[in-house]
């Protein structure tokens, strides 16, 4: 489905919903402290540029990410979620990312079934050395979400700030 027409952006899941003209997507990025957060810092130190739509949250390990963080983010503020951790085998906490990987796959497939586009929730492994990769990943996720349009699914209209 073509989400983006000439002058208006519509939500891919809810075509009747048209984005306001100044709409900018919000990506919630949850990064593990040891690999991906360090990698994102390296992106900064090497001044690699990427779109400014991502909001980064630091967690100790990708295994700290409870699936309902993803659900919560999609329901409240985010148009897309990116979760990033250490490459398999590199986990600072030995095996955390292996457990996380299982949860992520199931969560993503479940969200896809209930009507979210698969690009709304994306995952990556970014090591502390992969500053450039982090920039690419953010760019890809942002581009994807821009194409999908605003997310307006099960949004909580007046959640507690």
């Amino acid at each position, binding site marked *: 489905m073509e989400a983006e027409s000439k002058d208006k952006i519509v939500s891919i899941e809810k075509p009747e919903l048209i984005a306001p003209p100044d709409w900018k997507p919000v990506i919630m990025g949850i990064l593990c402290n040891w690999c991906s957060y360090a990698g994102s810092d390296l992106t900064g130190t090497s001044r690699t540029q990427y779109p400014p739509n991502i909001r980064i949250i630091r967690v100790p390990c990708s295994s700290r990410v409870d699936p309902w963080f993803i*659900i919560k983010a999609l329901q409240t503020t985010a148009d897309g979620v990116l979760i990033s951790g250490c490459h398999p085998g590199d986990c600072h906490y030995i095996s955390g990312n292996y457990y996380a990987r299982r949860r*992520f796959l*199931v969560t993503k497939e479940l969200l896809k079934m209930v009507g979210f586009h698969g690009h709304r929730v994306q995952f990556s492994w970014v090591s502390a050395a992969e500053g450039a990769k982090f920039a690419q990943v953010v760019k890809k996720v942002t581009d994807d979400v821009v194409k999908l349009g605003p997310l307006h699914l099960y949004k909580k209209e007046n959640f507690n700030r």
Partner: protein
Amino acid sequence: MDYSNQIRDIAAKLFAEGKIDVFVGYRMSGFDDNQVPVVITDPKETSVLVFTEKSVFNLTNYLKADHTRNKRVGLVVKGCDSRSLNLLLTESQVKRDKLYIIGVACEGVVDDKGNKMQNCMECFIPDAVVYDEMLGKLQGKKDYIVNADITELATKGLVERREYFEEIFENCIRCNACRHSCPLCYCAKCCIDQETSTLYNGTNTSSSAFHALMTWSLHLAGRCVDCRNCEKACPSHLPLHLLHKQNEKVIYENFQNHLAGVEEGDRGAFYKYSLKDPDDFIM
């Protein structure tokens, strides 16, 4: 499939031998030809016990209740029920030596209208996997079949699926009957009820239903045994099995054919991992 007499005899015998304090089984509802679970503490009452293809409920749900907790319990389990029992055993919720389990080689149960239940038609473990005594002729394991509704949903478009589920979540009244009827929802205090969770916020909009049901189904992912107690309990008749069966399918296909509770000591798919787990969905 009628094991009523055998079960009555076994229950009476267990009481007589002093092996159990409580027996959990089925009796006729009294209103119609449907059955309801019954918790028997008086040996004289064993005559009300029945077991036919109308014995639909998963009785392991009663193991978490106060009147059976820490008591010696006799109970009847079908294939699916025994799988949830397996999980309760590994999750230390019940002790094996306190249970006397009558396993049934289940031929499938029927709904109110007398039609065979969908989960029974797709059942792959009809025989009880954990038991002290077995009733009926063993049927053996069958091949895993992807749920027909899931297969059908997969053919639908994104917008269509969204509309379908939006309606489901809108119709949820957040009564939590699904949770109470689920044998594997035994938490001391459910996460949705905890103040810190910010899950519920006191509204029953589609938004909070979405959040609660999604979280619930993810807590049961890799553990749900498809007994459909939740669906039977749901006053809004929501097709809750869709969420569970979707997770089950993804887990079966990706994580070494894992099926909840089939093997002794199984904890569910999220509490172990394999180096060979799929990695291609991650950038």
